[in-house]
């Protein structure tokens, strides 16, 4: 399965991945981030059951310093 994550193509990911599994795979802490999938926010409460599909475009964001 291929995904576009933060504008970059990621190929060869296992099919049937949930958002939670992807975050674990990427070693990212759920608490500090938010995920958008094909322009829709994925609620944190659904990370565990939100199945990703081939070609999904994801944005994974966090807070950084700003004014």
């Amino acid at each position, binding site marked *: 399965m291929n995904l576009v*994550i933060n504008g*970059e193509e990621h190929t060869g990911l296992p099919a049937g991945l949930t958002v939670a599994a992807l975050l674990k795979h*990427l070693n990212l802490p759920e*608490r500090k981030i938010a995920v958008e999938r094909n322009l829709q926010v994925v609620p944190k409460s659904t990370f565990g059951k939100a199945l990703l599909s081939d070609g999904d475009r994801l*944005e994974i*964001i*966090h*807070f950084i310093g*700003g004014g």
Partner: protein
Amino acid sequence: MASDKLIVAGREFSSRLIIGTGKYKDYAQNAAALEASGADMVTVAVRRVNISKPDEPMLMDFIDPAKVTYLPNTAGCFTGEDAVRTLRLAKEVGGWNLVKLEVLSDPKHLYPDMEETLRAAKLLIDDGFDVMVYCSDDPVFARKLEDMGCAAIMPLGAPIGSGLGIQNPVNIRLIVEQTKVPVIVDAGVGTASDATVAMELGCDGVLMNTAIAEAKDPIQMARAMKHAVIAGREAYLAGRMPRKKYADPSSPLAGLI
């Protein structure tokens, strides 16, 4: 003074100083400056995680959002739709509803694009956000934003990052006099006296980033800003003496030997 709190959209803040989290040497210095400033609200930006470096330090490791209110901003958004998209994601990180809207224009002056700011504010308010809005120091636009339902009006004192101080005190005062929600000078403060001037004009608070982050000693400057905001607020509440054209002796002239 104990009850003189800043209240924005029903939330109470003990400090009238809001600080940014950009431009610091590192997050540790930022956290130390925050502590010294006494602020209980910080602005933060929303950006992509660097997924190739998941172990990079994150802001939330240094500034605890359970103790300090995060005010996500829309820096980098040039349309209302971008702002809504960004803040919906920010909200999902930790449920933040109170946000800072800034829709900028030309990088040379970073003035707000007021036409797009008005449109974005409407979209965000309709989406359920409490919007603190960065705006020009124009009382007409400020009124429109307040009428629309913005939670705080945040006119610039001078261009972002310029440190030039309050360039148009007449307009800031006009905005203060006509506005019922908090008025917070956002941008332009360079040193402590600038923050005091803003507060003496009757502003409800001051938001600053560069003045602290780019001081030679950011932690000492953060402490100076804390005192400056308190001094300005107290002077405003105390009510200054009238300006006079001529001297008026402080020691009585009667009873001289």
